[in-house]
């Protein structure tokens, strides 16, 4: 049988496409995904949080609800026991005051976390490598509930008072 050129090219393309798709599914979809592609434009600022909840890389960064960038990286600072979040801000948003306030917020009731920036009043602006000093951690629903019940039980009987107070102080130290 004479080899047919179109047939071979067609089959080759098909198999190549198939394996490319498989490679995409196995490397890009799972959380341990390998990152391909050039870094996106924009400048990076960092912010340190006590607790980031389940903030993930790729989550949006917003100012007044408008998306201005995304979370580019998350690492743990073992000296201060804080989460250092790297934020990539799109290049067209150059005028975010340096004393802005970053907080971790939740989309919807059970939605994913995102970083909201409330602008400060300074005339100097954030630039590549600067740090946002004022931050607020994620509100963890469990600790809120914990706090509520701690207050509730301590008000109730004297018996559970010590335990309730204990819980409350724990929550407060977390904050």
């Amino acid at each position, binding site marked *: *049988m004479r080899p047919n050129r179109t047939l071979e090219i067609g089959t080759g393309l098909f198999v190549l496409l198939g394996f490319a798709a498989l490679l995409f599914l196995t490397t890009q979809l799972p959380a341990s995904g390998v990152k391909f592609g050039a870094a996106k434009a924009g400048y990076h600022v960092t912010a340190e949080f006590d607790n980031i909840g389940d903030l993930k890389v790729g989550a949006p960064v917003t100012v007044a609800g408008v998306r201005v960038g995304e979370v580019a990286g998350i690492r743990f600072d073992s000296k201060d026991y804080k989460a250092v979040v790297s934020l990539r801000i799109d290049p067209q948003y150059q005028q975010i005051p340096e004393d802005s306030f970053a907080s971790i917020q939740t989309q919807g009731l059970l939605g994913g976390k995102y970083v909201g920036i409330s602008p400060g009043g300074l005339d100097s602006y954030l630039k590549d490598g600067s740090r946002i000093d004022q931050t607020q951690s994620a509100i963890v629903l469990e600790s809120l509930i914990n706090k509520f019940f701690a207050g509730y039980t301590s008000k109730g009987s004297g018996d559970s008072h010590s335990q309730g107070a204990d819980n409350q102080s724990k929550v407060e130290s977390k904050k």
Partner: protein
Amino acid sequence: MIPGGNGFMLEGVRRLGAVTIFLIQLLLQCVPALGRPRLLVHQIYNAGARSLIIIMLSGLFVGMVLGLQAFNLLQRFGSEEALGTAAALGLLKELSPVITALLFAGRAGTALTSEIGLMRATDQLTAMEIMAVDPLRHVAAPRFLGGVVAMPLLTVIFSVVGLYGAQLIGVQLMGVDKGVFWSQMQGSVGLRDVNEGVVKSLVFGIACSLIAVHEGYHAEPTAEGVGLATTRTVVASSVITLLLDYVLTAAFL
């Protein structure tokens, strides 16, 4: 093949036995068939490369519909961010393997059956036997293997195109954040989910190719017989695919 006086049940059992014996004969011929890679490549081209357009087009639209429906549903609970997860899991685990198998049965399975059936009807298979060429090895086995190789590849292509379709609707049209779409997806989809889809498609590939080749090989050597065999291929492949899908899903959970 029409249920005779022996009763419907017995005929069903007989056909199941015939298919099983045929599968064993076919598998025995698969190893020697690999020694003729050119025949195999030709069949991969027929079953896979030529189904590419229909698979990609269907994948795109299935993904887009999934994006619309899942968005509409998730919006009621205020959790549109889960769209990526919903689309990825739905596509990878269920929609891609099943729809690809159904399309494969319609697009490639019918072609296989009518091709082999016509060979039978025009006595080409008999002629091969007379020349001491085993038609099972040279006609049936490469077609079977071609289908088995093509199906998983088509399925993963379907998944990727479908994800793109879902992203197109969710991100571009409905305004779900792109980073959230992908990071939520990556957070909840594991290699296990990808594997499930690939294993399913492999099983469907074996089942659909086997049915197509078997029906063609044992078609009645008339024009009507080939037509009937082609119809049976589509019906049997579709039913078996959906049945196996349930069994495999239950096994994977």
